[in-house]
């Protein structure tokens, strides 16, 4: 069977056999069934795979959170013991940060960046596939520790000495360290790929300042990843060498400086915070204009404030370390920098609000989540500013006040933004509209649940309840409004409401898949390029590559100014699409499926197993990787033209990637 070219031709030609890529192995060519997913290099399929995997880990991380809250629901909790509790909060954070929010944002980026810039795929489709598999295997690897002697238990920032073999003798932290190395490789290759895609693969006329804002925010995020991931890589290597090969990098008894880990971790960790939130900022900056029927207020300000957050984000890491005795000068500098970074963030909030101002607001579920983000993120942002005041921060360090803060910005911010994106883009990806009524319930239960869970934590924290405390007793609960017991129970009830809210989303997915409303071509009257193709998009995205002449190109093709300066509709979405179809490229050769990405990615956890248990296993893994790399290097990314069906003369073929 040959590789079918897109769009498939009506004429049936003699099947050609794909040339072999390494000796006996022939290229995979299935266009249906599991093979079409496992060996795919299509950015849309990979985007869905990223998001589906991330959603799975969201459920895992959510269950861990519920167990934590159940343990703290009543005095002398018996749900978890101290040891298991430590593993639970460590893995909850690790899962939510590295295995849910990051890959979910990566999934959206994968799916929508090429569509938004008018490209047919990413710059390096095979690297893209490799990135997904590395993320998946890394995620599985970290979680395998549950079944192999216990998970990591040092907290997600894994400070020394808790990360050392004395305080954590199980292999949990080894799994954690090596698993994060693997997902780190996925992030790094993703960053190289997506930056190259954005810079190099834009449609004609798609200048940087005409790019949809989601793509812009993702570009900033990918630069942050590009430079932040190697720093955590160093830190994780040092920790691995300490735990597995007897080095003493963070061991105070041997004269080491435990602050080294803290610096390395937070030089990565603070940009990481913006890696988590900026994609959601991008999503709602798409959603708000569409449902306000107005262009985004101050597009350049939103772009440059995003870039500014990207820059200043590198100069604030030590505000995580105010309690460690850095000295007055460092503390002062990082305090001021932390206050400064609130400015570009505030600019964004103002821009969103001004976008809403005077708009014809349409309260779809996507819009509700977007507005939810503005409100909840602002609450979390304000408590964040209180952390820049070092004396107050020193008081709050390692209390529930911090827990309250970062859940408002990450749950109320990042996750609400992602949910806004789900409801907004679902018809684009699957061709069906998520149920709005169920979505409204989903939204309100999440809002109520999240405020009930994380709101009281401000009180708990200011009253001094330590973060990571595994049990509380009646004797220490306090009285009246400041009764810690009451607020802990209250928060636990909130977390159950939150769970029901999220559950409704999952139910919504099932209901929509079974008998959801088929989405019209342009269900939201949208503005950007990803809507200028069918739902779901064709495999080659666009029949002909559009030439871009405006920010919000799709809107400007549909609407033009009349004599009175009013925007009036001149074309329907169907007509716009028809124009592209009429000029369709005759033969489009998409990047061809490949075995090698998954083979190389499969070698990585094998190497990591060997690092923990026995070096010869690592060598096997190394051989797998090397074999995969050679297969990859020898095989061209897009199969030769005569492997395609129908055979074509090279002249009229458009090559992608």
């Amino acid at each position, binding site marked *: 069977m040959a590789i079918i070219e897109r769009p498939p031709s009506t004429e049936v030609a003699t099947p050609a056999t794909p040339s072999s890529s390494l000796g006996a192995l022939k290229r995979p060519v299935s266009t249906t069934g599991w093979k079409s997913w496992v060996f795919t290099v299509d950015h849309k399929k990979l985007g869905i795979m990223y998001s589906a995997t991330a959603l799975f880990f969201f459920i895992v991380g959510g269950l861990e959170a519920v167990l934590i809250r159940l343990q703290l629901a009543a005095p002398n909790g018996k749900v978890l013991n101290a040891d298991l509790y430590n593993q639970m909060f460590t893995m909850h954070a690790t899962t939510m940060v590295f295995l849910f929010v990051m890959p979910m944002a990566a999934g959206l980026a994968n799916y929508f960046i090429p569509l938004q810039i008018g490209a047919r795929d990413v710059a390096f489709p095979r690297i893209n596939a490799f990135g997904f598999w590395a993320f998946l295997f890394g995620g599985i690897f970290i979680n395998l520790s549950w079944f192999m002697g216990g998970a990591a238990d040092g907290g997600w920032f894994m400070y020394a000495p808790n990360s050392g073999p004395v305080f954590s003798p199980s292999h949990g932290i080894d799994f954690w360290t090596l698993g994060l190395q693997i997902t780190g490789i996925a992030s*790094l290759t993703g960053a190289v790929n997506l930056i190259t895609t954005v810079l190099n693969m834009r449609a004609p006329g798609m200048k940087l300042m005409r790019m949809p804002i989601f793509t812009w925010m993702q570009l900033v995020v990918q630069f942050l990843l590009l430079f932040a991931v190697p720093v955590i890589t160093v830190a994780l290597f040092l920790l691995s060498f300490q735990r597995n090969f007897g080095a*003493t*990098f963070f061991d105070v008894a041997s004269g080491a400086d435990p602050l080294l880990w803290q610096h390395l971790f937070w030089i990565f960790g603070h940009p990481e915070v913006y890696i988590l939130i900026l994609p959601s900022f991008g999503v709602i900056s798409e959603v708000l204009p569409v449902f306000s029927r107005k262009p985004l207020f101050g597009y350049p300000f939103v772009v440059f404030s995003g870039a500014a957050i990207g820059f200043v984000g590198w100069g604030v890491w030590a505000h995580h370390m105010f309690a460690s005795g850095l000295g007055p000068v460092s503390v002062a500098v990082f305090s001021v920098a932390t206050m400064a970074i609130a400015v570009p963030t505030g600019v964004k909030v103002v821009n969103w609000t001004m976008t809403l101002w005077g708009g014809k607001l349409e309260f779809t579920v996507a819009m509700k989540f977007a507005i939810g983000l503005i409100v909840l993120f602002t609450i979390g942002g304000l408590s964040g500013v209180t952390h820049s005041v070092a004396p107050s921060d020193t008081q709050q360090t390692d209390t529930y006040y911090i827990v309250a803060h970062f859940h408002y910005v990450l749950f109320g911010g990042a996750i609400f933004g992602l949910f806004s994106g789900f409801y907004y883009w679902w018809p684009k990806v699957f061709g069906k509209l998520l149920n709005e009524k169920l979505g409204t319930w989903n939204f309100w239960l999440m809002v109520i649940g999240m405020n009930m869970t994380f709101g009281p934590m401000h009180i708990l924290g200011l009253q001094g309840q330590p973060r990571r405390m595994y049990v509380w007793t009646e004797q220490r609960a306090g009285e009246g409004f400041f009764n810690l017991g009451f607020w802990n129970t209250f928060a636990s009830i909130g977390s159950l409401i939150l769970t029901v809210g999220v559950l409704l989303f999952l139910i919504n997915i099932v209901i929509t898949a079974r008998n959801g409303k088929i989405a019209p071509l342009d269900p939201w009257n949208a503005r950007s390029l990803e809507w200028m193709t069918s739902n779901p998009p064709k495999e080659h995205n666009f029949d002909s590559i559009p030439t871009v002449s405006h920010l919000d190109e799709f809107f400007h093709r549909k609407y033009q100014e009349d004599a009175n300066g009013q925007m009036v509709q001149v074309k329907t979405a169907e007509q716009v699409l028809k124009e592209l179809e009429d000029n369709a490229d005759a033969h489009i050769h998409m990047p061809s499926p490949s075995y090698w990405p998954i083979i190389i990615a499969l070698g990585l956890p094998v190497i990591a197993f060997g690092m923990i248990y026995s070096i010869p296993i690592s060598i096997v893994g190394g051989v797998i990787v090397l074999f995969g790399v050679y297969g990859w290097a020898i095989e061209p990314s897009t199969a030769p033209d005569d492997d395609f069906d129908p055979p074509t003369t090279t002249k009229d073929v458009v090559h992608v990637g």
Partner: protein
Amino acid sequence: MWFTLAEHAVITAGEHDTGHGDHHTSTGLSNNKLGMWLFLGSECLLFGGLISTYMLYRGRVGEGPRPSQVFDIPFTSVSSFVLLMSSLTMVLAVSAAHKGDDRNTNLWVTITALLGATFVGGQVYEFTAFYNEGMGFTTSLFSSSFYVLTGFHGVHVTVGIIMLMSIVGIMKRSKTPGSKAETVEMIGLYWHFVDVVWIIIFTLIYLVPA
């Protein structure tokens, strides 16, 4: 700082859009080359982290030998010189590749790989000598951070050698002369980067007194 540079590059790159011409890409730079530059930007922070660790710990020798007691500066200078010369031969390889001269490309790539192997051989010899003088991986914070930093660099050189040897093999399979010129150039970028990093490491470890 690298972020600044990269952002600057982004914005400069964006300027070219309006220019006409038959550029295949928006920036005019091929995807492969841009990707390699980005990767090398990331590598700067990898080595930045390792160098910082070494600089923090280089004075903490504990019971073990001090840097000045083990380092053999003339020997390492010679192997550093060999590595620097390999950058020259790499340039000649890239130049031959662009002329479509596969024979000379093969020749210079092979010589570059051999010079790189000489450097790695020197490093292995040096590590063995240090070990015999009582400086093991776990002897002191200085020794651990020294081996990690120079070891990571050595691994990078080794990966470079593997890529150089592979491209010789791949070029033999290819039927059109000069068709792998861009791949040779990309390996060249990587190779020069690894050399430049060595200049920094050599200066900081061997030449600047602790």
